[in-house]
């Protein structure tokens, strides 16, 4: 079964790969690199200095501060998903108190709309976006009926998966879809008539 790499760990793994590549290049003896520069200089007709040939990283490591500037929406998504998760845990805790539980679920939906907006606004990942849409369709198809314990537990598991990072693989997407399809009614809206 495919594992989702948590977003933070994904970034760290990228950094590790970059660093080890750079180290390996540095290990090449100077005599060989000098010879390469000389040969290259004769081909292109100019002197090549070693800095020009210094290995360039295809992917620059992500600096923590960038998450709070350029890509801060990713942090925001994780933060809001945490809020979603908290509501779902709370709804399970207070499951027997119907009004409290349904009120908590209203808050969950409120936060989910925020995630939905950000995912669409920044085109985070199609699978990620589709799972949020599937949850929204499932909730619409509930037509206001109170949530069951199984439904809330399924939502909690799916949100936990979403929380692991917005880059969602196809296998994880299908796993989430199957889980939602089991407890929710994801299909076509009642009004849709698509005769074969």
């Amino acid at each position: 079964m495919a594992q989702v790499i948590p977003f933070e760990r994904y970034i760290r793994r990228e950094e590790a790969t970059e660093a080890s590549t750079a180290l390996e290049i540095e290990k090449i003896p100077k005599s060989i690199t000098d010879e390469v520069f000389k040969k290259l200089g004769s081909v292109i007709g100019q002197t090549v200095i070693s800095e020009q040939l210094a290995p360039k990283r295809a992917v620059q490591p992500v600096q923590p501060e960038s998450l709070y500037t350029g890509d801060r929406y990713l942090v925001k998504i994780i933060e809001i998903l945490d809020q979603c998760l908290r509501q779902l845990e709370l709804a399970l805790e207070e499951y027997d108190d119907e009004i409290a539980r349904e009120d908590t679920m209203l808050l969950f939906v409120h936060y989910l709309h925020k995630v939905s907006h950000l995912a669409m606004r920044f085109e985070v990942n199609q699978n990620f976006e589709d799972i949020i849409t599937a949850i929204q369709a499932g909730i619409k198809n509930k037509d206001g009926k109170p949530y069951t314990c199984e439904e809330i537990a399924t939502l909690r598991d799916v949100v936990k998966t979403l929380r692991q990072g917005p880059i969602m693989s196809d296998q994880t997407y299908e796993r989430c879809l199957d889980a939602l399809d089991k407890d929710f009614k994801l299909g076509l809206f009642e009004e849709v008539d698509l005769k074969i």
Partner: protein
Amino acid sequence: MSDKIIFFETTAVVDYSLRPEARERIKNICQQYGKTVTAQYVRMEIKRGVLQYLVYLYNLIASKHSFADVLNTVSKLSSTPQKYRLGTVLKILANFSKEIKNKTPQDIIDEYGDIPIDEYQRRKSKSYLRTIIKLLWRSIDKIADEIVNPMDCFPDIRGPYEKEGLFINKPRDCGKSKFECKIKQFFREHQIEFQKILNQLEQMPTGNLDEETSRRKRSLKEILRLLPYGGRKFSNKEPNRKDCWNCGDAILAVVAPDSADILNNNQKHYKPICAAINKRSIPY
């Protein structure tokens, strides 16, 4: 555990997969049965029918820059019932998207910027349709304990796959399969049943026959007429494959195991067909 078998015809599979209210009814019925069966023929019908419409809508949305363009393109299709159904689906999706957008908390919009409603509708509808397409195709295998295919119908069928942001649903029908089916042999082996179905349809007053039943009657007659002749071909590789498609309901009733009841939502068609071959038509 009951040893009774229930056979899902095409609409039953689609409704179970995509119609939440029908799924509950079907689940209740299925509790009385020990085994669920469907046919590869059902998969073929879904692929060239409802799935093709959904894929078309998805690809249309994916190709257009605005939802208004999508609506406009559908409005220019020929005036068939399907055009109006597609138009209705789009309007329902547009409402669903609008409803969600209207519930988006203002603080997140203020902080991160808004999305124009047209773009929101386009993206949300596309996202929803992608899920529906994937669900439908995957559900066929999940519903049935067994998928029968005695006539080797479209063995190389494959689900729609994504390429460059679009769904590819080709080959769409069995005519493009690499293999030749054995539908003629299947009709020969079950000639008596098909003849009984034809007799039943011929007893029905002509005025009571809808267009689909009339087509079925004509095609059944045509197929039964060519069976004795070895030289007359009948398969997915011949133009007369359309006769096979016209007989879909009759073929499904016959292909269902002898002891199976036929689950359907079209008593008008299935009741006389099932009655002719001593099978039970179960509505949901």
